């Protein structure tokens, strides 16, 4: 094989408690494709690994025979600040990208937990978005090109290095969030953006959820265009956090306007603090778990979102869970929560909680949970109506089910 196995010290990370017997770190995309082709022939199951920050995402795999690391396929392919384009190898960390773009006043304005570890390939494969998705582009909007290695032994590309392009099918977004089940992403191209010259967050506190909901509605209806807006449970009630970016003077002006709209006690979190405040927020809802906590995202029509968050808060109490993070994104309708369930009946109470959530939401995704708690459920929630088309798609790209078998929606 054209790739070097790790030294014994470089043990592969466990995927839901399964430690892959073999672990490879190829040095080029072709090496990945060869491993996949070999695995297809030998009917082995492969799990691609980036920064290993979100391995808790997905169903418990049917099998893991080997893991491939992207750590040696990293670095910047090209960066053209005045074209607003960037091309990177999939093993590049998000932090490296941020450090490259910052001196030119640009960024990929995305919420990424653990940016110094998380890789571009892993972020695309998991396809999760944080609070900024309510008012700022997501991976889905910024991805303009991609290449991936497949079990057929080929490396294919789609899209390109231009910000506007209708040449060919949109495989970028098909791979996005597909958890490596169609191919292993080896490089990606992005449209980058200038970052806001200043930013601030205004946080108001409320005794009742309904008051926070009403305030969020006032902010949404005002001229303010927040990049993030979150109604979150606090120790003493609820809070509304509004994040804005723009020219310094505008940010100052809008901060005052938001404070008026909140109609409650509020505090302003200034530029640098605001960044780290949201980074912490993002990491609270990362797809990670210890032995006792779960991260879920429940979604509903935006206009029904406040009912969903209220129900979830009640269910947490009923099942004696502790909501370490429980937040609703007005305008998006999704509620994200990190809940800890402790003691011997924890797994059952988590199952009960999930069963309670399912009927009140359009869908409930378990982003992370202890492996034993996940077995027997589809963490992706309701099976989509077009599952047959999705299975057909999987069959086209990976007929031998080499890539992450069982981990994706509907057991794909």
């Amino acid at each position, binding site marked *: 094989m054209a790739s070097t196995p790790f030294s014994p010290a470089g043990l592969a990370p466990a995927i839901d408690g399964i430690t892959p017997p073999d672990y490879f770190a190829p040095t080029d995309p072709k090496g990945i494709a060869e491993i996949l082709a070999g695995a297809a022939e030998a009917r082995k199951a492969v799990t691609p690994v980036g920064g290993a920050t979100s391995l808790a995402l997905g169903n418990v795999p049917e099998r893991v025979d080997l893991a491939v690391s992207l750590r040696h396929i990293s670095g910047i392919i090209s960066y*053209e*600040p*005045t*074209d*607003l384009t960037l091309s990177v190898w999939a093993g590049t960390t998000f932090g490296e990208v941020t450090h490259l773009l910052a001196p030119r006043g640009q960024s990929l304005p995305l919420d990424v937990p653990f940016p110094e570890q998380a890789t571009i390939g892993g972020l695309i494969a998991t396809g999760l978005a944080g609070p900024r*998705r309510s008012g700022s582009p997501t991976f*889905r909007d910024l991805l303009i090109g991609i290449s991936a290695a*497949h*079990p057929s032994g*080929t490396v*294919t*590309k*789609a899209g*390109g*290095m*231009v*910000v*506007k*392009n*209708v*040449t*060919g*099918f*949109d*495989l970028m*977004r*098909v791979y*996005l969030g*597909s958890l490596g089940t*169609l191919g292993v992403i080896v490089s990606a191209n992005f449209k980058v953006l*200038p970052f806001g*010259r200043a930013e601030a967050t205004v946080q108001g506190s409320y005794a009742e959820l309904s008051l926070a909901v009403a305030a969020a509605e006032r902010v949404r209806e005002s001229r303010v*265009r927040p990049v993030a807006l979150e109604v979150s449970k606090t120790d003493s009630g609820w809070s509304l956090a509004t994040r804005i970016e723009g*020219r310094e*003077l505008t940010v100052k*002006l*809008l901060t005052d306007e938001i404070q008026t709209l909140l109609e409650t006690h509020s505090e302003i979190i200034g530029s640098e603090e605001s960044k780290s405040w949201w980074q912490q927020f993002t990491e609270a809802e990362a797809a990670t778990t210890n032995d006792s906590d779960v991260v879920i995202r*429940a*979604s*509903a*029509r935006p*206009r029904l979102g406040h009912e969903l968050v209220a129900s979830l808060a009640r269910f947490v109490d009923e099942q004696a869970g502790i909501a370490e993070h429980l937040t609703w994104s007005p305008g998006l*309708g*999704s509620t994200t929560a990190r809940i800890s369930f402790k003691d011997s009946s924890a797994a059952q109470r988590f199952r009960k909680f999930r069963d309670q959530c399912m009927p009140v939401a*359009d*869908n409930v*995704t378990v982003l992370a949970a202890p492996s034993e708690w996940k077995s027997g459920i589809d963490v992706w929630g*309701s099976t*989509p*109506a*077009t599952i047959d*088309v*999705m299975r*057909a*798609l999987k069959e*086209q*790209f990976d007929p031998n089910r080499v890539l992450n078998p069982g981990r*994706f*929606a509907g057991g*794909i």
Partner: protein
Amino acid sequence: MDQSTLIERLTQIVGPAGVFHRPSDLIVYEYDGSVDGAVETARPAAVTLPTTTEQVSAIVKLARQAGLPVVARGAGTGLSGGAVAQQGGIIIALTRMDKVLDIDPIDRTALVEPGVINLELSEATLPFGFFFAPDPSSQRACTIGGNVAENSGGPHCLKYGVTTNHILGLEVVLPDGRVAWVGGHAHGNAGYDLTAAMVGSEGLLGVVTKALVRLTPNPEATTVMLGAFATVEEASTAVTRIIGAGIIPAALEMMDALTIKAVEPQYHAGYPMDAGAALLVEIDGITEDVRSTEEEIERICRECGATMVRIATTKAERDLLWKGRKMALAAMGRLSPNYYLHDTVVPRTKLPATLARVGEISTEFRLDIANVFHAGDGNLHPLILFDRHKAGDVERVLGSSKEILNYCVEVGGALSGEHGIGTEKRDYITMVFTADDLAAMAGVKNAFDPTSYFNPDKFFPKGYMCGEVRALRAQAMAQKHGIYAF
């Protein structure tokens, strides 16, 4: 199934007023918006005009039974042959499914039928304070269904993104006639992003019967600025400086001298007749922000040699400045009996070199070429002027068009920024994609439509998709068709 049985069965589904089958009625459906001669035309066996999803589903099932291809069609304004029934068969024209079913100002979405006209959607949502951001130049005529099929752009996609960024979900009739939703209101749908696969798939995967679209709040303030420059290079430097300053305007459009000469005498938009380039910049957002940005852009333009900068803040003034840009195609009639509207895209900073090459090609092929383009995102629209009745003109147009494509691909660009591949560019697809790349895309096609009922002979090189092609195992097929490229 013979023709008369087919017509009878179609009539049972959509009624006599919903079926066209006489040659005189079919002629108009042989074309799309492309110039005659540049894109192949073809006559369908019948054109149907359904009014419900159920009817679309029944037509698809019937077509399958009859072994006929199905081609979905909106207003027919497309420019790459996407709505032409290349192998005959049944055209499903969705223009009578033209209702805005719901506008929800809280969810900020609209649920629309595919035949709703793009501009009419924004007009319908205006009282609620919203607009539908994709605004292709044909927006007075083109439909949302067509926008979805082609992933349409428009001048404002620089800031707001193209159609795919504004589609949340689609009701689709699949090749077996089944009706299914992909995507939806909630952001947590499980599985692959089939909505994204559908958008821009040029009618190869399914027929869209409803679209749930994202609405964008109207900006508080909008300003349009016109900068006149002696040369395209100076104007391009200004564009680079504007973007370098961290400003993303809502639109950034440029016109060259030939375009200005066609437009100004007719529409009096105020473009100086002696300018080498006119740069149109639209900025929007919070009032205070827009005012400061205005000053910054004006300063940059002057530093880059602008001979004139005009700022329009009222709607009437803004509309006048835009009029010249929007009517540029119509004005070409002053210069030439016909024009071929090209659509290619290059990395933005390659624009000046690309325009210089277009100038050389114009000389080589003895054809005047006017240029209007989306300067912010590198999307060029060379307008190749010709006379259809002059022997050899069409051939020279196609020759020059291919030369332009060659150059664009060479500098890292793509074949189309917003018009699509269709039949127009399908045989050029190997300029950018390898046999393996195409096999992966064929995999998507096969997953939806393994027997190729929907819009055959589009996007893939001629003959490529005949019969079932197993994706990523298509090398043998590719060899057979001589696709090596690369």
